[in-house]
């Protein structure tokens, strides 16, 4: 126990902390500028100087460790004098443009000068002049205001790991700028904006539109973008989100955000938002009333159910909607319509992979917390770049490297390139063989643990010719040995599995090999998810074979439980999955499809087939916040409230249940309310008083959510239990099917998973569009040479399923023999090129690896 006395107050400390932290723990304020709790200690601004008895000079409280018996004074006349002096120096070059500066009111410099002075300046020299920099789409820099605390630089390099900005020159000439000296051209996470104590680096989104003290509501909610589930605070004025900021101490992101989370909120107030229901009359979608729209949907669904049975209706749920929305949606289909035909785009890899992993290891959803990655000694990354799909999870991998951990990657991972990754990149064609070689090499080194006979039998059957592989690939024997050595010798390895692994031909076999590696090295699996509630949607039973609580429909015991709770007999037969729905629409057995918050025309492979199938339906209902590609085909379009306008919960990829809170008032209904209205028009029963009532029912019926309440969730850290038992009962045989080798020498499609975009929401977020305005095809320079292409050429990429036209950008981070295309922008989505061919094991489509042909059709006009 350390005892220090600060300003006469005795403070007992459990562990070694700095004098500053000791003082703060006792409620004693010491002024700081360069100190920030997320950053390494720096001691640069000298504002935290304090007197310590028996020490000759004033000491910086932020760097001095509190020692037993220390007597400290923080507010004496001598200290005040020094602080006044420091501030006078800082103000020499400060423009004092507070009336114009957006930071005024929450500016640390302003507050300090207000408290300590000086009231006048003795300096007659001219102030430094720097023009305000508006080169960047989301960040505005006014470096006249900079006080050189270097918080932004330390944040960018030491925490975010982007290292886009640095201190240039020295002494009086030093200033902070990005490499280019002008445009940031960075990850645009905006974490430099968070830590800037003055108005030097600020968000452009709310520039000159409000004052910090005019913010009435500060609503803590969960980011609507990826599966990490970062806490965000929406600051609202007059029902407009003015700014989204992180909160230090929040469980997942602890004060950090990515570009989507921080700058992607403007879709909420986008003028393209649907305001009234639309109904198709004489072939045209026209605005109508809620009564007519809901009455029509209820009437048609009742007719179709009566004529063809409940199984002629299907529903597609949404990984962007809350647990409450998804629970009500599956209940509507199962109870009101009497069908298990419910699925979602989680079928595009996540759901199948989770079931597969659960079958092997007993748990499929990520069973470890995201921040634990930073404490692993080794992280193996397969299946794409985690720093773009789940940026905040990516930061934990970067932190692992910074702490001395080893980063191993299969394939090139751009976002980790400065984190000394040990990389094996044999090219897309040879990745499966590489994984086989790794399994065999690890087996040689470590042997089988002996705990899972079923898996071990399958591992023993793995064959690969190591020598042949080394001959055919660019991988060296030493490189492979080093990789195996590092992976094999790690004590706490983590395996991060991205969607590129799950959306490739032979994905089931690759996933098996990765699971085998994980088993041999005794690792922990992280399954990446690119949607905010992809996990929650599965938990809510939005799958043809699952009931809420992630319980299998085939279990009579569970089915009974829900039949009792819902007072209705449930269909026993599993329903159609999302691909079977398209097939059933095509062949006419499916008559009606209800789509909630999803865009199957864009987010499923083969847009042409999907469109043709949906057109054959008797009734297509689309419920969304924008009129999507799918909405334009619908008979009825129902406008829903967005994430910011409703209450509910999201469950992130680590099974953390978090509250989504209403931040903005808007007329309309949440998804679950609309569904309830339709159900009430059909059966006259359903009624809930609010999202909380829905959640109370979930907590009553779902074994995973038993006895949970909003109150408990609000206290934080609710991760639903997973006691190592398979949620779906005994293990089935582990399906292993080695795919046929792909044809060599062809150019294949690969999805470009962008840091700045997610799809439907991000393309309606002006700030994100400004950062990344349009789709491009990225091609490796060497591949481009072999195809006689140059930067700025426009190419037509064709596959069996479709074609798109895009400008070429050369990118040495792109894989050879593939073309990277994003699935974000209307009309140029990568998925329309992919086919409906599914992996036999995961039942996920093979998107990456789709053979394409490329022809040059022109040049970008400047």
């Amino acid at each position: 126990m350390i005892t220090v006395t600060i300003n006469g107050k005795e403070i007992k400390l459990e562990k070694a902390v700095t004098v500053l932290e000791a003082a703060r723990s006792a409620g004693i304020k010491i002024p700081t500028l360069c100190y920030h709790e997320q950053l390494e200690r720096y001691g640069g601004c000298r504002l935290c100087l304090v007197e310590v008895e028996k020490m000759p000079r004033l000491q910086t409280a932020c760097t001095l460790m509190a020692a037993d018996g220390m007597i400290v004074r923080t507010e004496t006349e001598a200290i005040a004098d020094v602080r006044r002096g420091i501030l006078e120096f800082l103000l020499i070059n400060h423009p004092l443009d507070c009336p114009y500066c957006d930071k005024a009111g929450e500016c640390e410099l302003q507050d300090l000068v207000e408290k300590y002075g000086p009231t006048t300046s003795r300096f007659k020299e001219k102030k430094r002049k720097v023009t305000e920099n508006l080169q960047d789409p989301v960040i505005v820099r006014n470096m006249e205001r900079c006080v050189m605390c270097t918080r932004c630089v330390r944040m960018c390099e030491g925490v975010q790991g982007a290292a886009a900005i640095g201190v240039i020159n020295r002494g009086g000439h030093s200033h902070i700028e990005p490499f280019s000296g002008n445009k940031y051209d960075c990850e645009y996470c905006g974490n430099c904006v968070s830590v800037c104590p003055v108005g030097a680096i600020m968000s452009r989104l709310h520039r000159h539109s409000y004052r910090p003290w005019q913010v009435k509501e500060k609503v803590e909610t969960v980011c609507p973008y990826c599966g990490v589930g970062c806490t965000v605070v929406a600051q609202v004025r007059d029902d407009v989100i003015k700014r989204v900021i992180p909160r230090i101490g929040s469980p997942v992101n602890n004060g950090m955000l990515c570009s989507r989370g921080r700058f992607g909120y403007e879709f909420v107030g986008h003028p393209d938002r649907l305001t009234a229901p639309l109904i198709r009359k004489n072939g045209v979608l026209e605005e109508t009333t809620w009564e007519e729209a809901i009455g029509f949907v209820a009437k048609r669904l009742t007719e179709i159910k009566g004529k063809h049975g409940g199984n002629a209706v299907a529903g597609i749920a949404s990984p962007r909607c809350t647990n409450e929305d998804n629970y009500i949606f599956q209940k509507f289909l199962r109870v009101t319509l009497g069908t298990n035909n419910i699925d979602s785009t989680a079928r595009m890899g996540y759901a199948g992979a989770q079931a597969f992993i659960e079958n092997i290891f007993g748990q499929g959803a990520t069973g470890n917390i995201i921040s634990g990655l930073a404490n692993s000694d080794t992280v193996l990354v397969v299946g794409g770049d985690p720093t773009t799909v789940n940026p905040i999870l990516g930061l934990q991998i970067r932190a692992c490297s910074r702490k001395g951990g080893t980063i191993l990657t299969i394939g090139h991972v751009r976002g980790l390139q400065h984190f000394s990754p040990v990389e094996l990149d044999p090219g897309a064609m040879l990745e499966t063989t590489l994984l086989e070689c790794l399994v065999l090499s690890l087996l040689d080194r470590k042997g089988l643990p002996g705990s899972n006979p079923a898996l071990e039998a399958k591992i023993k059957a793995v064959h690969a010719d190591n020598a042949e592989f080394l001959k055919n690939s660019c991988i060296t024997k030493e490189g492979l040995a080093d990789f195996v050595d590092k992976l094999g010798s790690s004590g706490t390895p983590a395996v991060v599995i991205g969607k590129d692994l799950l959306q490739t031909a032979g994905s089931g076999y690759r996933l098996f090999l990765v699971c085998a590696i994980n088993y041999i090295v005794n690792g922990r699996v992280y399954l990446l998810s690119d949607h905010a509630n992809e996990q929650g949607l599965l938990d809510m039973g939005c799958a043809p074979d699952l009931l809420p609580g992630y319980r299998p429909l085939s279990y009579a015991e569970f089915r009974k439980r829900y039949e009792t709770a819902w007072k209705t007999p449930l269909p026993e037969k599993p329903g159609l999955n999302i691909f079977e729905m398209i097939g059933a629409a095509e062949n006419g057995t499916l008559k009606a499809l209800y789509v909630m918050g999803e865009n199957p025309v864009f987010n499923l492979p083969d847009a042409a087939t999907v469109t043709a199938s949906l057109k054959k339906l008797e009734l297509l209902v689309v419920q969304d916040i924008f009129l999507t590609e799918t909405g334009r085909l619908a008979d009825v379009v129902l406008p829903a409230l967005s994430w910011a306008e409703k209450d509910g919960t999201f469950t992130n990829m680590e099974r953390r249940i978090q509250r989504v809170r209403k931040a903005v008032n808007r007329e309309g209904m949440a998804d679950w309310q609309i569904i309830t209205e339709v159900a009430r028009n059909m059966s006259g029963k359903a009624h809930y008083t609010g999202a909380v009532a829905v959640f109370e029912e979930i907590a009553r019926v779902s074994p995973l959510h038993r006895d949970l309440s909003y109150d408990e969730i609000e206290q934080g850290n609710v991760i639903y239990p997973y006691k190592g038992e398979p949620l779906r009962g005994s293990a089935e045989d582990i399906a292993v099917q080695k795919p046929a080798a792909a044809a060599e020498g062809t150019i294949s499609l690969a999805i470009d998973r962008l840091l700045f975009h997610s799809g439907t929401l991000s393309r309606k977020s002006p700030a994100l569009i400004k950062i990344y305005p349009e789709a491009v095809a990225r091609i490796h320079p060497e591949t481009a040479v072999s195809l006689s292409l140059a930067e700025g050429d426009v190419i037509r990429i064709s596959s069996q399923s479709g074609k798109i036209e895009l400008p070429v950008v050369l990118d040495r981070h792109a894989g050879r023999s593939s073309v990277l295309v994003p699935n974000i922008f209307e009309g140029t989505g990568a998925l329309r090129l992919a086919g409906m061919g599914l992996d036999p094991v995961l039942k996920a489509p093979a998107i990456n690896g789709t053979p394409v042909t490329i022809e040059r059709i022109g040049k970008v006009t400047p």
Partner: protein
Amino acid sequence: MNTMPEKQMLSAAALKEIQDIRKNYPTARAALLPALYVAQREFGWLSPEAYEAVSDHLGVPKAIARGVGTFYAMYKHKPLGRHVVQLCTNVSCMILGAERLVDLLKNKYGLEPGGTTADNRFSLVIMECIGACGTAPAMLVNDDFHENLTDKNIIEILERYT
């Protein structure tokens, strides 16, 4: 920053040298200073491309490399002439006529402090003390040291550099 007339690439020999330098240091960042010298020797100055090349080959983010490089006066950040004249004008040299020498260079060669002659022959850098106060004024031409400079011998010395 200056924009380059044409794209610069490090030679294979320079890349090899940087890789060898890297092996002598525990971390990539520690190898940054000598690696930047190699790039400066190649190009005569540190262009954005030079920083990018060094950054790529060492695995150090380019903004960090530039931050380190700009801290030190001996890294140059604009193209220089074939011969770099670094003349001290600190107290001792100033008293013994260094400022007159600066004027002389301007008149004789059209060489301004911080500038380069039109024929790209000389660049002049005014530097702080080079520790030759006893034999002031003094200058460096490239890596050669010259002391006891006068109006006469400075021109004789410089004429040796063509």
